[in-house]
């Protein structure tokens, strides 16, 4: 009931979900697994991964566009979510292989033998055979799924509590979150971190118990799951920013001190937003990495989180669809350019090869967006909608355009 009235009050959310459903059905029909096979399985995976990136972009938009916290560390939560599900995937898959091997032996395997074989199978590459303590729940899908939510959530809670209570704000906080993700990736790069160092976790595209099912089909399953998560995330985020809570959060973004003087516990609001978005990021990561097939510490290097901020900024922060547009557009275009599909431009004296020049274009293009279109692409959509509504009917302003997301300096 609440949902219905909520949806009726926010038609843009319905539009988004309808478009998402249309997209998913379209991709399914065109796929190799369920449809006419017009698009390849690897492209289905790219689409599914893009949906996950859109989901984390929504999280980023919540924390930055609505709450004004420029977090440069949300990919740490994304990566942690991926690691948590990756542990189960890798452990169970290795276990099924190991049990098969040991069945050929003369004696039935003891539990110790199975564990040792799994350990040397997984950790042989970093010179170990013991299974670290942090893998103690790796054989349980339910617990690892819970950890997908709990580990990023707890890290965000502790980090956020420490940072917000000492009133670290603005660029200081950005740098601090960047330091957090750097520290985490450096830690995971070590061989004795228990997560296979720079090898990371691999073979994640193989789903234990579904080995016989083709990747054509599995990729569609994950596309559906990602689309569902994105839809649910969008709905949740829209609901979260629509009510009184959303107003307070926006108020914190625009003038933190004033909201505090009004009697709100600013730190608690920030902490909630920070933690919730970390959880969303973790879920997005848990859906992303089985489609990518591999996760390693380089994925959570500071640069990844900065790109996330770039997507949201280009898409237009302070509006959820802006984040989705930005993430989808920039990540897909980036794939197009860097995979060598974009045609090179011969200038006679020099040929522009996009593999080399794409980042230059992105960097300067991003500067131009910041300078001349601070509302991003979403701002253009808003302008269009507003113009038409101004002609047709009085404005209802589905999602309030963001003001300058700035602190006093």
């Amino acid at each position, binding site marked *: 009931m609440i949902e219905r009235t909520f949806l009726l009050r926010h038609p843009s959310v319905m539009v988004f979900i309808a478009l998402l459903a249309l997209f998913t059905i379209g991709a399914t029909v065109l796929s190799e697994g369920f449809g006419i096979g017009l698009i390849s399985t690897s492209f289905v995976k790219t689409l599914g991964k893009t949906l996950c990136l859109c989901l984390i972009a929504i999280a980023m938009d919540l924390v930055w566009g609505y709450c004004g916290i420029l977090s440069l560390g949300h990919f740490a939560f994304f990566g942690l979510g991926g690691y948590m599900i990756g542990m189960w995937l890798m452990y169970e898959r290795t276990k099924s292989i190991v049990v098969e091997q040991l069945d050929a032996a003369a004696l039935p395997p003891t539990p110790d033998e199975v564990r040792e074989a799994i350990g040397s199978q997984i950790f042989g590459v970093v010179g170990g055979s013991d299974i670290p303590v942090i893998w103690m729940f790796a054989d349980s899908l339910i617990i690892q799924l819970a950890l997908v939510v709990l580990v990023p959530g707890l890290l965000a809670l502790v980090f956020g509590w420490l940072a917000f209570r000492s009133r670290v704000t*603005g660029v200081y906080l950005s740098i601090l979150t960047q330091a957090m993700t750097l520290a985490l990736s450096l830690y995971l790069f070590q061989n004795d971190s228990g997560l296979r160092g720079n090898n990371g976790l691999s073979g994640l595209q193989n789903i234990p118990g579904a080995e016989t099912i083709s990747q054509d089909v599995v990729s569609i399953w994950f596309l559906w799951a990602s689309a569902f998560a994105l839809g649910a995330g969008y709905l949740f985020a829209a609901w979260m920013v629509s009510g009184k809570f959303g107003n307070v959060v926006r108020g914190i973004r625009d003038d933190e001190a004033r909201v505090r003087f009004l009697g709100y516990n600013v730190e608690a609001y920030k902490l909630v937003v920070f933690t919730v978005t970390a959880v969303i990021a973790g879920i997005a990561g848990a859906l992303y990495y089985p489609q990518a097939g591999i996760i390693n510490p380089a994925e959570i290097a500071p640069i990844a989180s900065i790109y996330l901020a770039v997507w949201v900024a280009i898409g237009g922060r302070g509006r959820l669809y802006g984040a989705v547009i930005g993430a989808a557009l920039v990540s897909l275009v980036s794939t197009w350019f860097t995979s060598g599909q974009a045609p090179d431009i011969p200038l006679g004296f020099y040929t522009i090869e996009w593999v080399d020049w794409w980042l230059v274009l992105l*960097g300067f293009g991003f500067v131009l967006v910041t300078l001349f279109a601070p509302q991003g692409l979403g701002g253009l959509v808003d302008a269009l909608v507003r113009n038409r509504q101004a002609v047709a009917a009085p404005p209802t302003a589905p999602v309030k355009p963001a003001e300058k997301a700035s602190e006093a*300096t």
Partner: protein
Amino acid sequence: MHRGIGLIMVRLFVALAIACLGAIGTAHAQTGPIQAVLQENRADVERASRRTVQPVLDAIVATGSERVPLFLERWRDRVVYQRDADGLFFLVEDEDADPMRLIDIDTGEIAGEVPEDDMSQLRPNSGVRGVIATALVQFQLSDPDPERRAAGLTAIERDPEASHLTALRASIEREADPALLARKMRLERLLTATFDEDEAARVAAIESFAGDIAVDVRATLNPLLATRTRAAETLPDNANIARVLEPGTDIAIDDAYAMLVTADLAPALIDADTRDAALIANIDNGRVAGVDVATLDSNAARDAAYAALAETGAVPPAVTPDERAAAVADHVFFETYNEPSQAVTTAASETLRAIESRVGAYRVVDLGLDGLSLASIYFLAAIGLAITFGVMGVINMAHGEFIMIGAYTGFVVQQLVPNYTASIVIALPLAFAIAFLAGVALERLVIRHLMHRPLETLLATFGISIALQQLAKNIFGTQARPLTAPEWLDGAWSLNDVVSISYIRIAIFALAVIFFVLLWFILNRTRLGLEVRAVTQNARMAASMGISPDRVNMLTFGLGSGIAGIAGVAIGLYAQVTSELGASYIVQSFMTVVVGGVGNIWGTLAGAGMIGSLQKIIEWFNPANTLAAQTYMIIFIIIFIQFRPKGIFALRGRAAGD
């Protein structure tokens, strides 16, 4: 007939006389003492082996001939030849000449010319040559040429042997050169500590090294304390026991039992693999000793099956834990020194302990120097950032790329100016100028338009950063480019064997000091500095006083960027120049600024000092793992920010933020 016999007799006589003459000639050539020894041991000389050559060498040395060292050297260098006709050995005047002009070994006189084909070269293998070189040492030590004496000492230091001691002692009395004398005396003490027969002399020599932190002393004393772990039923009386090991505390029970097994004092354990192999070998129709194989899926079940198998006599019984414990309890485990003399080991361990504590103290000094040099790099990298952040409140994510620009400027200058000293002298101001211009351009084109939007400035400068990085990659390629330091910066200044620091790091330290002083002067003693401070504290008020904040911002940004360019040259001198050079320092620079506090060069100094020394200290505790060191450092900084959110030197005024 008689006549015929007479003729034969005459012929015989002549032949005999000639033979006798020949024999006399040969005997004459053999008169030299070295040649005599060589002929006596001809087989061992021709096919010398490492094991058999020593007695020959001893005999040669025993001749006392003054030509022994020359001969040994030639032998070592493979320029001794043997005449095929009579087996005599000769030196040659010119190895490449044909015919060869032979030189008598003992007299040094020319002994005729022989075609090269009629001579065989002696080709001692490397083992033999090593033995010869050892025998040569005693001659080198007394050589009139000081350089050769020094070379002889170096040879002993590298590979000391008991036999060197006598030769060394003999040469000390005749040593005239004071420096070499000191070296010889020191080496004599080192050799005495290890090789002297007299225990008291050794102890005295060892104790004479008290407090000497040189590496060679530790390299001499440590082998004296080498131990071996042994097991026995009772402690032997004659052994020099280092310590007795208590099973369970000093040595694991498993290890102790394994030692007993190795020493044949106890039966071998049946480990899991042996047990499983035995079980598999005795599978009979799906059953082992009456147990169904399918049930053997736990260690307990397998142990039980093995016990049942042992009862049938098919396999030796397993050692029970009780038996194992009893066996270990019945024996003693101890470490013995390889060195039999207890007085020596006691003296060595006490001396070594004193030395180690001194070494520890010097290590701390060395660590301090390391930290200082790292701190000066961080200071150079971060000070520009701190100034721009302090004055304008903007974080410049492209700061690392200005460092990169400086480093590449240095690289390009070195391509054009081949003289390294001149190129560095040109590169430093040029790097400053180019980075200054780049900074001013960035400020004019981008940052000015994003005033009061710090988060957007951060992201926009990040966009610049990725674009510049990729541009550098496109221009200079991905491979690392060297920036070579001039020769006078090669090497290191070392106080002793523990404390040393490379000249490049000293130069960087000097550079950091110069810029600290320079900036302090600019900010506190010049008109520009006054204006900068005014804008930092209250830009609007400063503007109403006639200061142009716009101009101040531009100059400050240029200044900060220019210093980053200088830092780039400095960093490039000891690290490779790549497009990621700046990016790898940027987070550390941010940390330095955040910890130190903004807009204050003292704060940056404190921040750099703290982060530099902290990183070195953490690396010291965990030297193998620099990744962990960085992780812990970042965590420490996050915690530090809890207590001083605005850094060590908090700034008051507008730039202090909210």
